[in-house]
């Protein structure tokens, strides 16, 4: 249970995941924000107005999957680092990353699931760290399709260390 372990349950995740058709269409943001906290920067970060305007700042974000292009602008805007972009057409996942040193394109790193367990090796295909992201890098990785909704963090080096 999320409130006891910090790990979202499949029910939690279902509430923020688009249907299979939308997933197969192309990149889309998954906003893993499950409690009502006073926070709204994601709304301002979306150039396509796909995140609904907050009527109460404590509302959970609501994403219109049909408007979301998966551009990933929201990823680094989230103070909770809770936004990811999955792309089933390219087996690609983009995630926020605030550890040094940053990995380089081509690096093989470990993909960690929501419980912090290394579950597969992944390849870094893009590292975005522009000034406007204010030190929250966005890392894109290539990984087996079945892990797209599982991997949520990466670890450089030996996972058994």
């Amino acid at each position, binding site marked *: 249970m*999320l409130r006891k*372990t910090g790990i979202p349950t499949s029910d939690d995740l279902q509430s923020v995941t688009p249907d299979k058709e939308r997933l197969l269409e192309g990149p889309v943001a998954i906003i893993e924000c499950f*409690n009502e906290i*006073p926070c709204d920067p994601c709304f301002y970060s979306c150039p396509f107005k796909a995140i609904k305007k907050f009527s109460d700042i*404590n509302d959970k974000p609501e994403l219109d999957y049909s408007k979301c292009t998966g551009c990933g602008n929201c990823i680094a805007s989230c103070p*909770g680092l*809770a936004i990811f972009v999955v792309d089933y057409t390219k087996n690609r996942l983009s995630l926020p990353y605030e550890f040094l040193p940053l990995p380089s394109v081509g690096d093989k790193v470990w993909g960690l699931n929501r419980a*912090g367990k290394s579950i597969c090796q992944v390849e870094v295909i893009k590292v975005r760290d522009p000034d406007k992201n204010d030190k929250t890098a966005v890392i894109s990785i290539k990984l087996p399709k079945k892990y797209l909704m599982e991997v*949520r963090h990466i670890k450089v080096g030996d996972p058994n260390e």
Partner: protein
Amino acid sequence: MILLINTDLLVIGGGPAGMTAALKAAKKGAEVIIVERYHELGGQLIKQTHRFFGSKNEQAGTRGIDIAQGLTKEIQNMSEIKVLTEATAQGYYEDKIVTVSYQNKFRKIRAKRIIIATGASEKMMLFLNNDLPGVYGAGAIQTLMNLYGILPGKKVIMVGSGNIGLIVSYQLLQAGVEVKAVIEADSEIGGYLVHASKIRRIGVPIYTGYSVKSAIGESFVKGAEIIKLDRNWQMIAGTERFIKADTICLAVGLRPLVSLLIQADCAMAYVPELGGDVPIRDENLKTTNDQIFVAGDAAGIEEATAAMLEGEIAGLKAATEIGYLSKDAITESRRLKKELRKLRNGPISRNIRKGLSKVRGDDNVKKNRYSHLR
């Protein structure tokens, strides 16, 4: 020689609440002195390397360290504000004068209004060997690590899963420290779930319903014995387990620093939801002492965003009362109060709202309770 300084507004504490209070009042024309104990302004903000929550309009998404820098720069550019750093307010006297120790001298400051924004102190926790070297408060670890670049240890047990415990765990991980576990006495995680998920996916287990029974070690921490708690937070014998670590970090809550308010005879109330004894005040943060306002954690433990808004509200009202009237003051004050209400509107702030409802009236006030402190 004891120097007497006269000013319009004295702000005690240069953290988020004190800085916004000073700026707001100065922009209305008031002459302000900020008294800050540390050698730079910013309070807790200068250790907060993470992005802030809240409204985009109130700096959400910005890191605490950058908020502190921005406000400090703004203050330095205001000729109306004089900042005394490494200055400690020592007492409030019956003739409405505050004494301050500054540069090895005892100063007296007489101000038309005073805003007390002294913040909070960390709570301690009772367990066996809690005085063993290696047992730290979360604030100390943040100071060592984020200000001075010194690691407190290599393997840390975090006690408390409120936002501070979760955030400091994350900062420790960023610094390359292993966080062995987060221990939480309650049956659920106290802080924002996004913070919890963030450290969980890095591999840090969170044990809810557990507490520390004892710190293990002869001359320094070598680990902790943790134990399961029942629903009434009583230890369940036989459930002890040992976790190896060289550091135990306590993030078990904060208590408002209110000694000056008590000394100034402000009516107080004990409000657990706000962290302890807090002053009774009106919607402008004015206490029952007509000269004194309160803002930030000294008024009740909350996030820095709320502290900054409280500072602005108090600063604006103080400036008006001193005589710096502005046409838009009423609309501005209304807007700030609305922002603050919006921020506190969610389920996460239920306790804050409950606590605040107790400091508006005189119901809980026990005036004489504090007389021995004066």
